[in-house]
């Protein structure tokens, strides 16, 4: 694989991660699912050409693309943590409101973990 091809593959992986970043701005479970697929695709792409990376060793442009990819991955990671923080903190508050506190003063787990329905 030539350096130019490595560069192209890295650019495409980066574009996939950037798409994931855009999805992460709307942190619904659905968008997170799509985001996971994109991240997986980017990972597979990189893993696919990594054995042939020696051909591009020393290529300035390929290195630049790889650094841009790292920056995008780190960006996605921050947004994913942001999304998690939004959901998990709310989950904690919600649990506290629903179930109060444990004797140790921690939020008790809300027992509702699935849909509630009654049949008579």
């Amino acid at each position, binding site marked *: 694989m030539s350096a130019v091809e490595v560069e192209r593959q*890295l650019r495409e992986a980066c574009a996939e991660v950037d798409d994931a970043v855009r999805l*992460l*701005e*709307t*942190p*619904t*479970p*659905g968008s*997170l*699912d799509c*985001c*996971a697929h994109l*991240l*997986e695709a*980017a*990972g597979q792409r*990189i893993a696919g050409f*990594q054995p042939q*990376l*020696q051909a591009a*060793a*020393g*290529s300035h442009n390929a*290195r630049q693309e*790889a*650094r841009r*990819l*790292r*920056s995008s*991955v*780190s*960006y*996605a*990671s*921050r*947004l*994913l943590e*942001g*999304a998690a923080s*939004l*959901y998990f*903190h709310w989950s904690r*508050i*919600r649990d506290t*409101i*629903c*179930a*109060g*506190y444990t004797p140790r003063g921690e939020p*008790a787990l*809300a*027992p*509702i973990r*699935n*849909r*509630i*329905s*009654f*049949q*008579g």
Partner: protein
Amino acid sequence: MANLLTLLASTASTLDAYGRVLETTQNNVSNASTPGYAKQRLPLAALPFDPNAGTPGGVQAGALESSRDQYLEQAVRRQTVSLGAQQQLVDSLTSLQSLFDISGQQGIPKALNDLFSAFSAWGTSPNNQATRQAVLDKATVLAESFQQASAGVADQEQAATQLISQTVDQVNHLVGQLQQLNNLAMAGNNKDPGLDAQVNSTLENLSQLVDCTATRQADGSVTVMLNGNHVLLTEDHQYTISSLESMPVSPPPVYPNAPPGVQVLASDGSDITSAITTGKLGALLNVRNQVLASYLGDAYEPGDLNRMAKQFADRVNNLLTSGNITSGPPPEMGVPLFTYDGSSDATIAQTIAVDPSVTPDQLAAIDPAANVSNGIALALSQLASPIDAADKIDGVSYSEFYGEMATRVGTALNDAKGQVQVEQSLVAQAQSHRQQVSGVSLDEEATILVEFQRAYQAASKFITVLDQLTETTINMLQV
């Protein structure tokens, strides 16, 4: 048996009744009435269950909705305060960076290089009048460059001080607006959605400036705290903050002539500067009291610009005074080239100058110890690429030391620019999450949380893998 929810809807519409039913079905939603947690008890309401009519039943939360709204508003504000800080950092550091040229085409680095070249030329022709005059001229330019850089940073300090004062006024103004809204809420308008929107919008504006937390009270008013510790507003009482330049008293200042720091004071006069670490005001305080002070000094540090000016002037003067102007007999001793106000190490860069009484003839080129006619001139030219520790500052050459100062601003600016992009996305993310909210159904929400957790774990796993793959890729691409 008829379906239970339908029965409940018709016969037991109260929440307590619903709670009892849930208890009997061993569904621990009854924990909503945990003793001692009365204020946050969750009022549950059963939704009609009629599959034929398309109503799926379930549980709807009442107070939970407002709790979540408040949580999401707070989440948006939390991200906004970080964005405000990073945006202000970018603005302030962009101005500062323009003072620290690293191209070598202007300012201190150019003046330094030119002076080193002049020393070198003088070393080659130690008795040439033109090369001696060039040393004086270039040294004068370097001293002026230090003065200009010092004045430029001082201007930045002045501008930051002014901005801090304006930002403090803005904070007081916004809290004043919230005070008026509190009055309206306490007058019985606390259910007015328009009023609620105004409160949230004002709080969002306030959170760009300072880290504030807002707690809604039973009477509809909001209590606003600065950094969770200092009350800015409670009911109809506003506690204004103020700013002033002052030199700390304890511990006693080491450099009393250094620029004073800026403090923010609470309404009772107590110093709350350290509590303001983020938002626009936090960033301005950081730039004013930390970043700029690292160049120009403060009560306890002389500042890198002053250190560099002093050490360079002292080293050049030491070399020149250790040399001879003429061999004699009797030999004529060298004179110092640079002068500065020695009363404080924190004002060297602004007062450094070439002694106007020194003439080209008075530059001492002769090294009497080695008996070399151009020994001192050569030693001065060695300052460009020093080997001797005495010719270095903090273990590096003067050019490198300056480069590190300039790089510090550049790196901080780049980091802040990157952070702005991330923070903008995080604000957008929190806003998007807030907009998705409409009505609350506990069971739906529980499902969303479970789905989210699963999706998060998957995405998180891929991020970790990608991170490792990228690192390996970068390593493999190195020469």
